[in-house]
């Protein structure tokens, strides 16, 4: 397996210079046992983000609405979800567990993997490439997904006198969403790119993030009351809608989603800190070191 025409696609003007810098790097074509992932760099920016977790006031869930979020440096993200073929290399290296379900197409995204598998792959892949790859936070995922970000698609407010009202409303929202399960694992690029050039966001493979399940009690002024509850055994999964999934779950159907069609498949892609792009020489050096082993 050789490094094949890997390149960085940049949409944001801020990262044009990075593209220029990378396309000329000759060692990309050197032989090796792992193919570098095609990467998209998304510029720094500010955006509105509906926070993960549950928000309650006087014990009743409320809708926290969008809150401002911002990244002050570019983030690199894999253009495609991690493929089955790439993931199986980690399995062959005995650093990752075999997926619970798989496509017959090694180019297709890996599915049937849990949060811990995705993390194990990130560690292995980082070690192999000498780069600092990791799962995105939900905020990063939202920023990179841009218009493909769905987040909470069901309203969260509750009527204090009648819990059934919100319950029925969510049920009907789910009906209107009319998302049919799509069990087929499609080839990469099937769902097309978003405005940042990142492929297949919000398709039928949901993506693990590092977000933990939280519950925050607030007073009328939006100030937290007491300690926030955090459970990192449950992670945030983003895609056509947000889901909360125990970290050991490999098949989306069996995991979370109090309402809504459960995720068809669980997969992931990795991001890379801006630091890796800031120090291009160091980055290339690390890769070269790896290749010389």
């Amino acid at each position: 397996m050789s490094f094949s025409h890997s390149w960085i696609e940049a949409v944001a003007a801020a990262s044009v210079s990075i593209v220029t810098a990378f396309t000329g790097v000759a060692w990309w074509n050197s032989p090796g046992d792992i193919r570098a992932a095609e990467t998209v760099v998304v510029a720094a920016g500010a955006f509105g983000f509906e926070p993960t977790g549950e928000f309650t006031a006087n014990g009743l869930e409320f809708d926290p609405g969008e809150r401002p979020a911002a990244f002050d440096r570019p983030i690199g993200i894999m253009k495609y979800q991690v493929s089955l073929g790439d993931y199986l290399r980690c399995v062959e290296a005995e650093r990752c567990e075999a997926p619970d379900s798989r496509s017959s197409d090694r180019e297709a995204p890996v599915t049937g993997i849990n949060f811990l598998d995705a993390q194990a792959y990130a560690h292995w892949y980082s070690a192999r490439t000498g780069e600092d790859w990791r799962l995105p936070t939900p905020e990063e995922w939202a920023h990179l997904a841009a218009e493909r970000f769905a987040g909470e698609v069901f309203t969260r407010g509750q009527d204090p006198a009648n819990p059934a009202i919100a319950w029925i409303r969510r049920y009907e929202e789910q009906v209107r969403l009319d998302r049919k399960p799509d069990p087929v694992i499609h080839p990469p690029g099937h769902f097309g790119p978003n405005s940042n050039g990142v492929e297949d966001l919000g398709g039928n493979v949901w993506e693990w993030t590092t977000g933990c399940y939280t519950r925050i009690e607030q007073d009328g002024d939006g100030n937290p009351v007491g300690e926030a509850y955090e459970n990192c055994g449950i992670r945030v999964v983003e895609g056509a809608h947000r889901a909360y999934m125990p970290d050991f779950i490999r098949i989306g159907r069996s995991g979370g989603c109090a309402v809504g069609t459960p995720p068809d498949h669980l997969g992931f892609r990795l991001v890379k800190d801006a630091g890796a792009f800031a120090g291009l020489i160091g980055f290339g050096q690390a890769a070269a070191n790896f290749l010389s082993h």
Partner: protein
Amino acid sequence: MFTRRQALMTAGVASIAAAVASIPVAAAAREAVAAPDIATLPRQKVTLVAPPHVHAHDQVARDGPKVVEFTMTIEEKPVVIDEEGTTLQAMTFNGSIPGPLMVVHENDYVELTLINPESNSMPHNIDFHAATGGLGGGELTLINPGEQTRLRFKATRAGAFVYHCAPGGPMIPWHVVSGMSGAIMVLPRDGLKDEKGEAVRYDKVVDIGENDFYIPRDADGNFRTYESPADSYADTVEVMRGLVPTHVVFNGAKGALTGENALRARVGETVLIVHSQANRDTRPHLIGGHGDHVWELGKFDNPPAKDLETWFIRGGSAGAATYTFLQPGIYAYVNHNLIEAVELGATAHFVVEGDWNDDLMKQVQAPTPIATN
């Protein structure tokens, strides 16, 4: 009476001749007793509607017995039975799975015109568990594509009963698990009663037919599709003989009674649920509710059981249960073999609107971190 069908199916000219010769005497005798009465009875023509809906009917009969005329057209057609698009080469009474619920009163006469259009590929018939003799009518109703027949039977026993296709031998289970079943409800003339003889009334009735399907898979484990029922037969029988259904569903498909097709009611409304299963045992349960009055056996001359959590419908029978909704919300009505309910499809939803009753239930403490001392 002796049908052309029986004649065609009897081997040997001599036996046909003998049979024909012997029949008219008995037939004449029966006609002499019954015909004049029936000829003078009022007739009512009822247009059937597809389940879960039920045609308009009186809960208490207004007058004496009558002849109630129904027509059903048998339709063989592919039906999608789950959200993955798995297709059953279905056989249906009147185009729906289950076939429509017929409602009459005890001692009414049911007169069914059964049509098997030319476009179908197989002979069909109908066996009413509510009927007496003639294999439930199956013996008198076997029709080829391009034929129709009319059967009359007296509804002498009150209750919800299964009907199904039973065209003989291995065709019987195959036609049934291809969708050919439904129910008829014979109400007591003075309506439903509880164990004390007090009237039990309902605001609406829903007809739930449960089916077990046996869809063959290909070498990769994917469900196969076929060009026609006949094409699917050999593989399907093999799956059937394993007795492990691939789908257990309400009203013909996974999700047929959920989401936009969910059943609806209001707090305070009483719903009568008729539940039939022509082939296999099932155990209905209303999550968050109960069976107020349950005719588990489906037969209304027996007093209903009360306050049931789960009831049992024997394969080849229909049961009936009333429930008055007391709390708003989403109720799941399931076959409480939960594997069949969730994995195989036997789940319906009721969306019930109205005021919440804190006396019946209240969340006293919302989920919160565990208190530590």
